[in-house]
């Protein structure tokens, strides 16, 4: 009897071509399942230079930026002139010292940062420290080469602040977490989530109008006051370079 035996090479899985087809099939199946998202994203990148209005948009944005800058400078000049007339406290950019953060304690019990500029560089106790975004804290003590800064999140920190929209003063108290608490000694204050908090023009510790944070939540449960949670604009846990501003009181 003649036995029909298959030659092993003739099996489909032994052919390279079959695997290539299977691969293509699986890829197309993936494309189908993902509703073509792969293609769409690819198209997004290759068509990007040809989008309509892109160039025009950049030109407009640049003009707006320039206009804002000019307006800001004019307002700054105006502000300085008016402050001189009213003989209010002011801060000048000439007194700023740039410093790097060399040690950072933004969790745990201690909320402090250590800067690489000290009394040798003219840093004074009580100077304020500003990072990208706004106020970070005040210099508590200095050594020859370093200065220690108490962050505004520290329980040691208590500052007078100003709410621009409702024109009211409040007390910003650090709680030892990342969100200091603003205490308003007025139950009727019309404060809203998203309100902007800056340093108080009447403060003797800080120069006026330094951005601090934004209202995150409001606690109305107390009888005679409102307690507000503030989200800081300057994040001490992420900032590496700061400005030390001398306060002229």
């Amino acid at each position, binding site marked *: 009897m003649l036995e029909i035996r298959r030659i092993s090479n003739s099996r489909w899985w032994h052919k390279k071509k079959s695997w290539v087809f299977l691969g293509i099939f699986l890829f197309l199946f993936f494309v189908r399942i993902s509703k073509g998202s792969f293609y769409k994203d690819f198209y997004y990148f290759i068509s990007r230079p040809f989008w309509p209005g892109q160039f025009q948009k950049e030109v407009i944005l640049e003009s707006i930026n320039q206009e804002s800058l000019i307006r800001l400078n004019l307002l700054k000049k105006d502000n300085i002139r008016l402050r001189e007339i009213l003989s209010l406290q002011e801060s000048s950019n000439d007194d700023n010292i740039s410093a790097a953060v060399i*040690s*950072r*304690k*933004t*969790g*745990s*019990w*201690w909320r*402090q940062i*250590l800067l690489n500029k000290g009394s040798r560089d003219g840093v004074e106790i009580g100077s304020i420290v500003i990072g990208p975004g706004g106020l970070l804290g005040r210099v*508590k*003590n200095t050594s020859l080469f370093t200065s*220690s800064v*108490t962050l505004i999140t*520290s*329980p*040691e920190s208590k500052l007078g602040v100003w709410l621009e929209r409702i024109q009211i003063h409040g007390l910003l*108290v650090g*709680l*030892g*977490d*990342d969100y200091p*608490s603003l*205490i308003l000694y007025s139950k009727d204050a019309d404060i809203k989530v998203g309100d902007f908090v800056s340093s108080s023009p009447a403060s003797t510790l800080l120069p006026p109008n330094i951005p601090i944070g934004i209202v995150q939540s409001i606690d109305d449960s107390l009888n005679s006051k409102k*307690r507000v949670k503030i989200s800081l604009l300057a994040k001490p*846990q992420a900032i590496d370079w700061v400005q030390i501003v001398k306060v002229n009181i």
Partner: protein
Amino acid sequence: MNKFFKKKLSIICFIFIPIIFLWHPNWLGFLGVQPYWPLFWLLPWSMINGSFNGLIFGLFLGLILDSLTIDNNFTQIPGLILCGILFGRIKLHSDVLVGHFRYGLICSLGTFLCGTLYFLQILFKNSLESNFLLFIPSFKNILAEVFLTGFFAPFICSQLLRMFKFSSRKS
């Protein structure tokens, strides 16, 4: 020179505690909280040298660490002294594995003690203040510190203990 380093290894490690405390490596932290570094050194030191040495070096550590923090109202000295005394009373265990886990547990308890004493100081100072809102952040600090110190202690303490024993035997 090499002999000097071997002999004074424990003191050299002691000098590095404030540096690690200042360094505050965030990648080792949890919820922004760090392990309580001084206990990693104090436990092996006290276990080898006894309660009295533990007390003295607890005081020294407290003094140095207090000088590095700008919080003038509160101190870490009582907690560290107490831990120094307690750790000095612990005897070395023959079973290595039990020893490892024991370090974690002891350091956790020590951290809890130090954290609680620190918190009590804050509580005492602010007892008359109506705006006292520090309860939740303080509990978070204590719990995270206890967890982290307990987690790292078996690795660090057992190594330090081995090194200190080795250096004291050579001398």
